[in-house]
């Protein structure tokens, strides 16, 4: 029995989770192996409902843990087909071991992470500590700022991940509850258009080709391990960015929606800028617009691709900016935030005189308000005018208690 197709309206009101689930349906994923966790559960629930309504033909395996979910995905991907799952926070932590195994075996898998704080204390709301935890796991990482982008980036992720030159798994991040549970208008593709864009899966070194048996997941010690890892890293740095741009361009041609690895807003002549991810980008854009009316040349840089980190484009974007704030939604536990570090790394050996400060914000779902950003831009402008940092290099935004600032 063939599966049924859905007639979608041109614009549907979907939250981020449902948008992601619809993308998995339209990509006609062959195997989804999953375990539920807040706030990502609705993605696999959505997929389960599609399955029960004969809208997908693939196998849906509800396993007993997130570690098993990714283990099943790895086995399925090695067998040779399209694979996806979703998780968050503690689930991602449990899954973390297997993320390295998936990327090390160069298996295309799409993982939706609905960003949520890591316990303790237990918290189900958004921050980026889970995303940060697996940033070096060798996965390509996209970041969606809205349900629309969660939908689009899932389709894009399959294309990039499954490309035979890439053969690396990909993560699509979205903000827990803020994106995952906020319904907005989402421009849709028809089932046929979406599937045509993603394309029929092309297996490579698949375990189900019995004429060509393959060995996956070998052991390599000091004699080969370095070469494997170095090659994987080099491919990630050299091949993936170009492939992402290619797929972004193709997607724009199809939909008119343009994506960039670095999303720039008012950056052409910006004196001060905020670099951030997720839903904060939209808030920052709005405030930047208002700051412009007050005569402060404010811009926003939204990071669309977290891995491979777009070093060159970030350096190019920020080189003439006087003062930049890196907004990290994770407490780095005795270090500068990831964004702070990556931006510093991007610009360190350039002529840029940029003043960089790092801000920790929004942990465990704490709101980042427009007022916070007004204050932040004002502070950045003061730094720019003074030609030096007037405050500590690392600060918190909107936390109760004593003023916490470091470095």
């Amino acid at each position, binding site marked *: 029995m063939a599966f049924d197709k859905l007639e979608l309206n041109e614009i549907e009101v979907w939250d981020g989770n449902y948008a992601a689930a619809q993308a998995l349906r339209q990509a006609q994923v062959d195997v989804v*192996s999953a375990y539920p966790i807040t706030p990502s559960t609705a993605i696999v629930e959505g997929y389960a409902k599609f399955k029960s309504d004969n809208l997908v033909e693939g196998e849906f395996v509800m396993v*007993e843990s997130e570690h098993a979910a990714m*283990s099943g995905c790895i086995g399925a991907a090695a*067998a040779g087909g399209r694979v996806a799952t979703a998780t968050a926070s503690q689930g991602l932590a449990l899954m973390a071991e297997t993320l390295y195994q998936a990327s090390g075996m160069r298996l295309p898998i799409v993982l939706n992470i609905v960003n949520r704080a890591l316990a303790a204390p237990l918290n189900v709301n958004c921050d980026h500590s889970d995303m940060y935890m697996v940033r070096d796991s060798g996965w390509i990482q996209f970041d969606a700022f809205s349900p629309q982008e969660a939908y689009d980036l899932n389709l894009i992720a399959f294309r990039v991940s499954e490309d035979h030159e890439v053969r690396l798994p990909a993560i699509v991040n979205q903000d827990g509850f803020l994106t995952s549970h906020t319904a907005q208008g989402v421009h849709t593709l028809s089932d046929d258009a979406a599937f045509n864009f993603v394309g029929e899966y092309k297996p490579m070194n698949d375990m189900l080709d019995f*004429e060509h*048996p393959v060995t996956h*997941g070998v052991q390599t010690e000091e004699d080969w391990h370095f070469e494997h890892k170095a090659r994987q890293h080099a491919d990630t740095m050299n091949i993936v960015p170009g492939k992402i741009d290619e797929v972004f361009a193709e997607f724009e041609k199809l939909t008119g929606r343009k994506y960039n690895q670095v999303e720039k807003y008012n950056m052409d002549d910006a004196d001060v800028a905020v670099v951030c991810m997720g839903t904060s980008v939209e808030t920052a854009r709005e405030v930047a617009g208002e700051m412009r009316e007050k005569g402060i040349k404010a811009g926003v840089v939204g990071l669309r691709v977290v891995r491979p980190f777009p070093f060159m484009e970030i350096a190019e974007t920020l080189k003439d900016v006087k003062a930049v704030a890196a907004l990290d939604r994770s407490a780095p536990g005795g270090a500068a935030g990831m964004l702070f570090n990556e931006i510093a790394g991007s610009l360190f050996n350039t002529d840029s005189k940029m003043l960089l400060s790092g801000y920790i914000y929004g942990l465990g779902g704490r709101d980042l308000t427009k007022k916070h950003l007004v204050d932040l831009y004002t502070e950045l402008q003061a730094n720019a005018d003074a030609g030096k940092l007037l405050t500590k290099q690392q600060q918190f935004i909107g936390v109760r208690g004593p003023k916490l600032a470091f470095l």
Partner: protein
Amino acid sequence: MSEMKKIKNLKEFSTSADRFEGANLLCPGCAHSIIVREVLNATNDDLVLAASTGCLEVCTAVYPYTSWDASWIHIGFENGSTAVAGAEAMYKALKTKGRLKQPDRNPKFIAFGGDGASYDIGFQWISGCMERNHDMMYVVLDNEVYANTGGQRSSSTPIGASATTTPAGKISYGETRNKKDMMGIMAAHNIPYAAQVAPNKWKDMVKKIQHGMNTEGAVFINAVSPCTTEWKFDPKDTMHLTDLATDSLVFPLYEIIDGHELNITYRPKNVVPVEEYLAAQGRFRHLFKDEYKYLIKEWQERVDKNWEYLNRREEARV
């Protein structure tokens, strides 16, 4: 279901489907390779195999070499079972969608793991696979110890054995806990088939493996795998040790169908005293000191009791 492979004799059987190469790094005398060959040779069907981290894995897939002439995957210590379950799910999906490259093939999905990978760290994953009743077989290479990491106790290590994390010493006789009843636990999942096998009883083993491979749904196989290094015996004595294990009834051979019907598949003509089994292994040497001899008596009582239990279960047909 595919037609079961017909096997005439051991000589023919031993070379009948060479998909596991003799070229590997396993210790001389290791029973793992014998068991794996017996499992693979039981069928001519295509295979999708997984191995958990352990002796079998590190000794057979060291880049750029592989001992496997069949599709094979290793992920981690705990998740060999789920890797095969994922591959089986993909097979089903591609079959439904008509996208299999060789649609007429009838692959078998098999995961191998040691007792550490199965009784302990991978326990949850196996339980999940059995509960979901994937069409797969999980084979434990049960050498009752973490051999790959150098001899630490597992929950399969029997009482009185000296292991590196439960060493016999001035005030200790070694492992203090009884071996976990993995067969009982797995059968309690109500899986279609669970069986205990030994490489010396190859006909019994082939019968069970073939039955398992032709069973739709999850199959659990526990294979005793004497470890020359950790059990401490001469490499030439592997089969002798296996004989002692099965003939002393320390490792009885039986099967459980659909979680309840128990059949004993091997009844030794002459039952060997447990003492002989223990005496043949360095890991139990200290039990023969006067102060620990009571443990040997307890061992015999425990084995007798278990044998009686199995017999009653078989008789009761429940």
